[in-house]
């Protein structure tokens, strides 16, 4: 089996699910002949036709709303946001209409909203966002944010098969930078289960998406330079969150560093910290600490973006302090 990129893994999942299930279809801006801004849907329209790979007007609320309507009728739409930053235009539709459909009206709403997310790519404040925290407090939605090609494929397949709406965030920094050989069989990764990306004894880093790789890099350096054994937990699913995996790693290492790329205040680290407090307080030998972006819109210039976003060096520095605590 050849290695495939994170991006290619996503494309494979779309292809395979569309082949498998005629109710799956894609809609979004420029996803047809052009194949999408990042070419994720390249070749899909050629294979499945204009009827199942639909170029839409620039209207994210309509894309999401129309997907919901089609989903009620038994379809399984996959919406692309050209950049995930534009999901904010569909915020009302997602949080009020889609998320509540089953609960308030017994309407099934199986759909996926996916799109390129995250920074580290000089995209500036409107092409680099991490929207997970904005949706975390909306019951009725699910949120996944894979860090590996294998998880990208497996989670997207699970998302498409899920009977509720799944927000599928793709880290654009990873699109073409990571490669992996994928399992040959129909590869589905269950939503709601974290992945132990590295085993360790001294300290746990809990993270997801692009910063998983920074955490792993930091872990290696800390092992090499400080002899520290670092565990890295890749959450993969943010809603629902894998409490068991979180508690297990806290019990094991008793020291937790949460790393995420989103801004500090109101980022998901807060929720994780609260859960650790509630479920594993007695196992903590040190405060749960956070390495995150600074509380500013993400700037464009490389020195500014580098300064605002969490870097491997930051994780190393923070982990050293926490290990010494």
């Amino acid at each position, binding site marked *: 089996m050849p290695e495939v990129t994170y991006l290619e893994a996503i494309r494979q999942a779309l292809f395979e699910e569309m082949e498998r299930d005629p109710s799956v*279809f894609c809609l979004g801006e420029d996803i047809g002949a052009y194949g999408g801004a990042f070419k994720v849907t390249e070749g899909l329209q050629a294979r499945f036709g204009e*009827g*199942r790979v*639909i170029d*839409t*007007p620039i*209207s994210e*609320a*309509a*894309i*999401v*709303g*129309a*997907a*919901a*309507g*089609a*989903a*009620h*009728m*038994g*379809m399984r*739409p996959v919406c692309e946001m050209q950049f995930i930053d534009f999901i904010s235009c569909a915020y*009302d*539709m997602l949080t*009020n*209409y889609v998320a*509540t459909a*089953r*609960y*308030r*009206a*017994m*309407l*099934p709403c199986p759909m996926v909203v996916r799109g390129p997310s995250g920074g580290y790519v000089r995209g500036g404040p409107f092409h680099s966002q991490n929207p997970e925290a904005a949706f975390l407090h909306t*019951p*009725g939605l*699910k949120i996944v944010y894979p860090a590996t090609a294998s998880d990208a494929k497996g989670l997207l397949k699970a998302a498409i098969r*899920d*009977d*509720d709406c799944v927000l599928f965030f793709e880290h654009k920094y990873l699109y073409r930078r990571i490669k992996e050989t994928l399992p040959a069989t129909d590869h589905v990764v269950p939503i709601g289960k974290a992945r132990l990306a590295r085993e360790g004894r001294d300290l746990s880093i809990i993270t997801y998406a692009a910063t998983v790789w920074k955490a792993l890099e930091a872990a290696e350096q800390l092992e090499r330079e400080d002899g520290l054994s670092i565990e890295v937990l890749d959450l993969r699913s943010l809603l*629902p969150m894998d409490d068991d995996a979180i508690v297990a790693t806290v019990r094991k290492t008793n020291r937790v560093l949460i790393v995420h790329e989103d801004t500090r205040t109101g980022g998901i680290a807060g929720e994780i910290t609260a859960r650790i407090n*509630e479920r594993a307080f007695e196992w903590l030998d040190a405060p749960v600490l956070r390495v995150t972006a600074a509380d500013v819109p993400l700037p464009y210039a490389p020195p500014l973006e580098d300064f605002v976003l969490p870097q491997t060096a930051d994780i190393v520095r923070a982990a050293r302090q926490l290990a010494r605590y």
Partner: protein
Amino acid sequence: MGTRAGGSSNGGRRRNGGTTTAAQPAAGAAMRAPDRTDTARDAQSGLSRAQRLELYYYMRLTRSLEERLVNLYRQTKVVGGLFRSLGQEADAVGSAYALDRSKGDILSPLIRNLGSMLVQGARPAEILRQYMAKGDSPTRGRELNIHYGDLVRGFIGQISHLGDMVPVMAGVTLSFKMRGQDRVGLVYVGDGATSTGAFHEGLNFAAVQRCPLVVVVENNGYAYSTPVAKQTAAAQFLDKAAGYGIAGERADGNDVLATYQVTKRAVDRARAGGGVTLIELLTYRRKGHAEHDNQSYVPPGEIEHWERENDPLDRYSRALLASGDVDSQELAAIDARAQQEIDAAAADAEAAPMPVGPDALVGVYADPPAAEMLWFRSGVTSAVAVHERPAGWGTHDA
């Protein structure tokens, strides 16, 4: 203005069909009077006598049901606000009647479209239970008033956020097109809701995709307290159609037959692959936004004028009587029958139990089936201590 004869027949329509049951007598069953010329078609609308009486029945049922709700509201048996469609019954009933339930057409009503839901098969007992937040109401007490739906009968529950149902119905009807189904969708928006981004995005999306969708703009003069002149600078909502490249028509929404005809043309167009039609129906909201609204913003005499000159039920019963093949006893019998149904439904609904607290945790997701019980609630079924119910606790102000 919807006065020309609709060229299309209503042959495919089967109203009193298989969806009614013995326990729930068929709506409109009272109108079957085989000894009369039931099948004679009205020249303009193409509707049979039975169908024209059925329209009357639904309009009367709407009005009487809302009147009953007012009584219940005054008795504080309605939990939230009460939203009337007084004076707009023709527009909701006539437009919905143009859909074909036997084909699986789907409708998305708004707060003033109780009549349209009744046409699609909603039952008074459901409406009453909804308003009273009963545990066996269609939403099990989770949602307010007429915010509920049933895909089998062909209506979808709205949410409060105005305009959002337009993209949703674009998607519903897109699925009809994708699957080659012979189905049509109809979505209502108020004059106020046309200002929302969702209305625009959804209508444009449906127009480009040539979805089989009818968009009815109910121009009832006000959005809450805001008159149409503060909602749009356009001379008429119909003028929006060209901007979306779709067909447009305007009709007298207080004339049930005209409303039916204009909608029927649009439904036929949609079914024939002609895409979206925007219909502006002119009507008037004689009650406030909700029961608490004192309508202080309405110019003196305006409401009385509409009540006197343009009540849709008055107009329609006069027209039916003038047509010569309906007599006033028949109409009185329909009125009585509607009243009986409502009486039975109200007794039923009042006796129905409220939901119990832990029901609230069920059904947010297909999987997991229930939300986690809060740690401080384990084993507790009633959250509120008696003394916590402060005076004034009750319906919200708007």
